[in-house]
């Protein structure tokens, strides 16, 4: 306890200091039950158990290659797991394509490399999912898109192509694109690691706001300031295992495992 590390000096501190709203419900919306996954002979996920409740904000951290991306990509079936159960909104993930599409509709995902569609304008990127997947009328989809563009503070970029925007703007468009689907769960895979330092804050601000509104979020990130101010739970992963899981306050102040301690000290030194 005495050698607990207080992660105060992170690169970026979100401007809004999030009050820890007790919005979190009791209902479990994502359950990973003894999940195992192999890439060929490589055992990438080992007995992962994780429950996420409605409104819970989970931050996943851990060294590179520890399987963080793989875990959250299993949740919307971008990767297939081989053992154990993944249950999202009460639906167990199998090879049933219709069930997978239904889950993907309700689970938004934001990638490290944005992955906007470069041949479509920003607005077209945003309305594509609602129109084709949710069958929303075009007019309504455009209104929703403009609403979320306002929310991420770039309504004036609607008619530009992604290639004409900065990295931070692209990532905010990517977040808006997911939100336009009105998802109940959002997954973030290192959304700020491909960004220049001065753009990290604008993206984190959007995420903090989202967290305060009670969105269920799983966020792979090394932004410990973000974790400290908004997360309900921080999960530390290493070598395909969940090493430790606790509230940010406890985990940072009082890490139980040596590996966690090492990792935290590294991340705070740099």
């Amino acid at each position, binding site marked *: 306890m005495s050698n607990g590390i207080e992660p105060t000096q992170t690169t970026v501190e979100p401007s809004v200091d999030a009050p820890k709203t007790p919005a979190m419900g009791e209902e479990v919306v994502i359950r990973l039950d003894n999940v195992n996954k192999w890439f060929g002979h490589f055992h990438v996920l080992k007995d992962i158990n994780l429950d996420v409740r409605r409104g819970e904000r989970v931050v996943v951290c851990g060294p590179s290659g520890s399987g963080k991306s793989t875990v959250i990509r299993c949740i*919307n079936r*971008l990767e297939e797991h081989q053992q154990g159960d993944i249950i999202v909104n009460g639906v167990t993930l199998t090879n049933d*394509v219709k069930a997978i*599409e*239904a889950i*993907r*509709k309700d*689970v*938004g*995902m934001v*990638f490290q*490399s944005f*992955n*906007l*569609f*470069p*041949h479509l*304008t920003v607005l077209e990127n945003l309305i*594509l*999912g609602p129109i*084709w*997947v949710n069958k929303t009328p075009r007019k309504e989809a455009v209104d929703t898109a403009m609403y979320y563009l306002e929310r991420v503070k770039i309504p004036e970029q609607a008619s530009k*192509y992604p*290639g*004409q925007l900065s990295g931070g703007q692209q990532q905010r468009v990517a977040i808006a*694109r*997911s939100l336009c*689907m009105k998802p109940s769960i959002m997954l973030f895979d290192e959304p700020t690691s491909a960004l220049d330092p001065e753009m990290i804050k604008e993206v984190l601000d959007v995420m903090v706001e989202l967290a305060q509104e009670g969105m269920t979020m799983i966020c792979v990130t090394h932004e410990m300031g973000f974790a400290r101010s908004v997360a309900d739970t921080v999960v530390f992963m290493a070598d395909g295992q969940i090493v430790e899981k606790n509230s940010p306050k406890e985990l940072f102040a009082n890490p139980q495992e040596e590996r966690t301690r090492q990792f935290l000290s590294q991340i705070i030194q740099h």
Partner: protein
Amino acid sequence: MRQEERDARNPAYTHIEEPDEPTAGHPTQRVWDMLGWTKKHLFSSIPNTIATLVCLYLLWLIIPPFLDWAFLSAIWSSDTPDACKVDGAGACWAFVEQKHRFILFGLYPFDEQWRPMTAVVLFIAALAASCYPPFWSKWLIPLWAVVLTVCGVLMYGGVFGMTYVDNTQWGGVPLTLILSVTGIGLAFPLAVLLALGRRSNLPAIKTICVTFIELIRGVPLISVLFMASIMFPLFMPEGVTVDKLLRAIVGIMLFTSAYLAEAIRGGLQSLPRGQYEAADSLGLSYWQKTRLIVLPQALRIVIPPLVNQFISTFKDTSLVIIIGLFDLLTSAKTALADPEWRQFYAESYIFAAILYFSFAFFMSRYSQFLERRLNAGTRR
């Protein structure tokens, strides 16, 4: 080079007068630039100078006599070949004057040739309209339905007082256009399916597509046409005949689709994995993802190899001669059957070559235009 050199030669020349437009500028400056270019690229060293001089000499040997033959001494108009047979006469364009209707329309009844003429004009107009991006809309589908029907009625006749003309009598430009445009038009969707199938996770579909593509690519077009025209009827039940023109179109379509499929597969492969994942994570179905995200990007990337194949197919339609169809090249050759005019084969082939070239050149330029236009907003 530019700016510094210019400034050194002409101190009054400033960056403000000429931004960075190399072609704009004072006339004498331009002459200087040209001389500088000539010296730098053509006479920079002794071997380079020798090569330049040899090339100039060869051009001197070839070009003036050709111009003399093709234009100055050419016989442009005459009812008989005698005028062309005098000493010192150049190209006998009178041959083309006399035979152009045969070359353009083949064996189509002479008095009815206004029909293929109208059909070709309509067809080319519809093609041109389809090439113009602002016209791209769902209206093109009914437009083509109407145009193809009208062209079919004109070519076959048998209604509205027009005599019936069987498609064995079709020939020349209309036939070449029908073969290449329908061949390519049908091959393209098939090629997209083949390319997608080759990347499919379903082993059966993948095997079928790979086998088809590799089989077709492994044989020459001539043998595909032979198979279509000679072997195919052998397998048909007694009494069932399939139109010869249709068989040729099917042969060309199958052959072209295999090559187009490989070009398209290149585009599919070059698309980053993140694009597929982003589309998946929105919940798009396979076909939605393919149509809205994958193909628009992949096809854009492969416009040059696609057009390359279009041009190739367009020229390869001339191989239908071996199954007895009368395309443009065949009719140019057959026009020479007239013993009176037999010796003017060069003129006949040059005329056909000019027609082929115009179409191919248009396709090539159009592909460059399309590439620029489609990439206008998306370039990073």
